[in-house]
């Protein structure tokens, strides 16, 4: 089986479920801070520990960020939604239920029926429909200790328990792994633009699960698998390509695809079935009696809509119209807040960009590039900080330089190209 081969004769159908950690100071239902990377179990209280007698209180800022997302995704915002309990037992769930917004006919989630336009190959827009946007609480983090203070034990860090999460669910409108990657990138840029999320997939602040199935073109939907544990845009594309090829091989053998949850193993570049039993879970959803219904007036929703900044798609069209950027360049320059800030600063100092040239330095597969403008004598590079990859490399080692530079020194040298200080522009954005 060749994972990269595009399945022929089958149509790939993909829907995404994206979990977004909201940029709030405090947790969803208590006042504990949400700072990433704090020592384990230092950001907890009776509420997020689920101690007997504790009660949740909804974070108004999280609701506002959810509404900003709903407005930016052109969703229908429901004036009255409810929270529900999703019941299941797991040690990362202190109450053994998660407070979330279940979609039930009498209780809609925060928002439904939206969409996000993607730039197509030729620059035309293609719409991916959004099924729902809802709010919920994150679980604790489990650490399965092989060594250290408690070898062979599972440790629980409750700092993450109760961190505000927003779930964005698409309709199964995506037709290729690269399209899924493109969508996720554009959604991330949008969430950054409206200051809802940092979008850092490597920190888990943006997590993507995918449902994928194959079908004969135009035929009924096939059996889907759910793919989890994809920690970068690139791994979303790779995992889905692998999974499409795997399903195709099964179908071509004449076997049925099993409905199951599969995890992406980045290092081995394969998906594997979860070990947990796949019996149908009954989550026994029911309305959370400890919270009152969430009421959003028409006026408040209108205010939120009016307060949105320029969104990446509008910006992309503006770059095409105002600067005559080619489709590819306009999409790239609006792929993140940092890139957009770099482009804005470039044209502020050197109007009339004449062309973006890309290179693939070193062994890295990531492309970087520079602008030529009519007035600047030298190419203008984005600041290295826009390209810096946080966290660890695939091999588990911390990265010491950005994707473009081979050494930290080269990275530092390039961070402040003569004539342009993009960093300050990025900081200011």
């Amino acid at each position: 089986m060749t994972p990269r081969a595009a399945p022929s004769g089958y149509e790939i159908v993909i829907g995404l479920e994206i979990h977004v950690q909201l940029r709030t100071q405090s947790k969803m239902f208590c006042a504990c801070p949400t700072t990433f990377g704090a020592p384990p179990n230092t950001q907890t209280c009776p509420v997020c520990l689920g101690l007997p007698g504790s009660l949740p209180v909804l974070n108004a800022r999280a609701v506002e960020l959810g509404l900003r997302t709903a407005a930016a995704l052109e969703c229908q915002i429901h004036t009255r939604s409810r929270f529900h309990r999703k019941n299941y037992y797991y040690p990362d769930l202190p109450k053994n239920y998660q407070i979330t917004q279940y979609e039930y006919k009498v209780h809609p989630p925060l928002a439904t029926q939206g969409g996000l336009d993607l730039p197509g190959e030729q620059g035309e827009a293609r719409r991916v429909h959004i099924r729902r946007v809802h709010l919920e609480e994150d679980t604790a983090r489990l650490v399965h200790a092989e060594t250290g203070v408690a070898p062979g034990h599972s440790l629980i860090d409750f700092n993450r328990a109760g961190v505000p999460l927003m779930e964005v669910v698409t309709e199964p409108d995506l037709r290729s792994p690269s399209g899924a990657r493109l969508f996720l990138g554009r959604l991330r840029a949008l969430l950054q633009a409206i200051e809802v999320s940092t979008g850092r997939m490597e920190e888990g602040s943006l997590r993507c699960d995918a449902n994928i199935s194959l079908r004969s073109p135009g035929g009924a939907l096939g059996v889907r698998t759910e793919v989890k544990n994809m920690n970068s845009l690139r791994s979303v594309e790779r995992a889905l390509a692998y999974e499409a090829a795997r399903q195709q091989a099964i179908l071509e053998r004449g076997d049925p695809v099993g409905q199951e949850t599969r995890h992406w193993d980045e290092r081995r570049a394969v998906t594997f079935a979860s070990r947990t039993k796949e019996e149908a879970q009954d989550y026994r959803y029911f309305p959370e009696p400890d919270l009152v219904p969430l009421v959003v007036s028409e006026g408040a929703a209108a205010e939120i809509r009016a307060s949105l900044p320029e969104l990446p798609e509008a910006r992309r069209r503006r770059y095409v119209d105002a600067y005559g950027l080619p489709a590819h360049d306009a999409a790239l320059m609006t792929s993140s807040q940092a890139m957009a800030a770099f482009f804005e600063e470039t044209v502020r100092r050197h109007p009339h960009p004449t062309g973006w040239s890309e290179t693939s330095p070193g062994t890295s597969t990531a492309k970087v590039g520079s602008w030529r403008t009519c007035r600047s004598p030298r190419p203008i590079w984005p600041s290295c900080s826009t390209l810096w990859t946080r966290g660890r490399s695939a091999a588990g080692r911390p990265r010491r330089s950005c994707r473009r530079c081979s050494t930290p020194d080269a990275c530092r040298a390039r961070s402040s190209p003569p004539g342009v200080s993009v960093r300050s522009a990025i900081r200011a954005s």
Partner: protein
Amino acid sequence: MGAALDRVTRLEPALHAFLHLTADEARQEARGWDGRYARKGSALPPLAGLPVALKDNLCTRGLPTTAGSRILEGWIPPYDATVVERLRAAGAIILGKTNLDEFAMGSSTENSAFGPTRNPWDPTRVPGGSIRQPAGFCGVVGFKPTYGRVSRYGLIAFASSLDQIGPITRTVADAALLFGVLAGRDALDSTTADAPMPDLSAVLNGGVRGLRIGLPREAFGEGLRDEVRGAVTAAAETLRDLGATLVDIALPAIAYALPTYYLIATSEASTNLARYDGVQYGLRVPAAGLYEMYTQTRAQGFGAEVKRRIMLGTYALSAGYYEGFFLKAQRVRTRIRQEFEAAFASADLVLMPTSPTVAFPFGEKTADPLQMYLADVYTIPVNLAGLPGVSIPCGLAGGLPVGLQLIGRALDDETVLRAAHAYERATEWHTYRPRGTGEPGTGNVGTGGAQR
């Protein structure tokens, strides 16, 4: 304080009212208040130096809190419930934590993991379980405020949409005083009402003249013991003599209150109690795997009634049953609330017995849960509707207290207390004390004679 502690020391072996006593701390605190009393001119908070016992489902920082369950044995909360904070701030002194049915699931304390509490009027009988029903069984005042008046933060949840904290006291005035301290919006409980609190001391003596009191005919039918009916009917007549008007009202849906309550309460309980899993706190039964640890901890930690209710609630919320059970129960609950609202168009208060019988003997209903549930037939419709209700002593039947229940409109707690206070002022039932408790007015119980 000394008198209260002496009485606890004397009666506790016979009654087993407490699960945890804080006598030494209480004495020490009392001495502090004595000093402040002695210093003239210093303003004292409303409950300065008054002894209060807390039901053991209220979280108390540094004091064991079990909710009557083995699964929480030894757990010491790191925080105070909002009501505990408010009591402490008002100067109350905590005597200890009192017994209850496990997670408040029951009507008799027979479901406590730590043994039953005995009724001071007759140690062979149950004291009841909750607020109004035990107040009725024990001849004292029990007041359940409007749902949302008192914060539930720190109350170990049984059924979140039905649980409500309230005082049990000797007199209505004491209940009103305590209610004034406990009640009010709490930022930590989203379900608390954001409504202004009345000045209770100003309205308490307002009397009942002009009040219309509704008697639901459904509450005086089958299942009600004759001597209870007699005492409650006589109490209604007393209120009429005091200037109230008695009106006939209909609450037909309360016939469905019991099954409705037991579907909603068990559904909520089944998920509220999911957190007792041996992971973070309380009992943990070590086992080979995670699910074995879960199941063995819960098998050993919970008693039979708790398990029964978790199973019932889990069933009612399950796919395929949710619509027929949980949602249907919600619709009946709405219906009951609407019927009360309709009744309050023609009446300012509703009057009915607190319980269909007087305190029953231990063991009488343990074999049949349905019989046990019937002991709450008059109190649970009020919980379902979220209304304020009070039970006050209105007579003796066979030497045991009978409770009169008055129910008011949502957030109209003060009219309930006002009418109860007027009744109490006009009668002497609240002055009767059980034999053998060594209190003034102990004698002559069971004679029906007015003797203080």
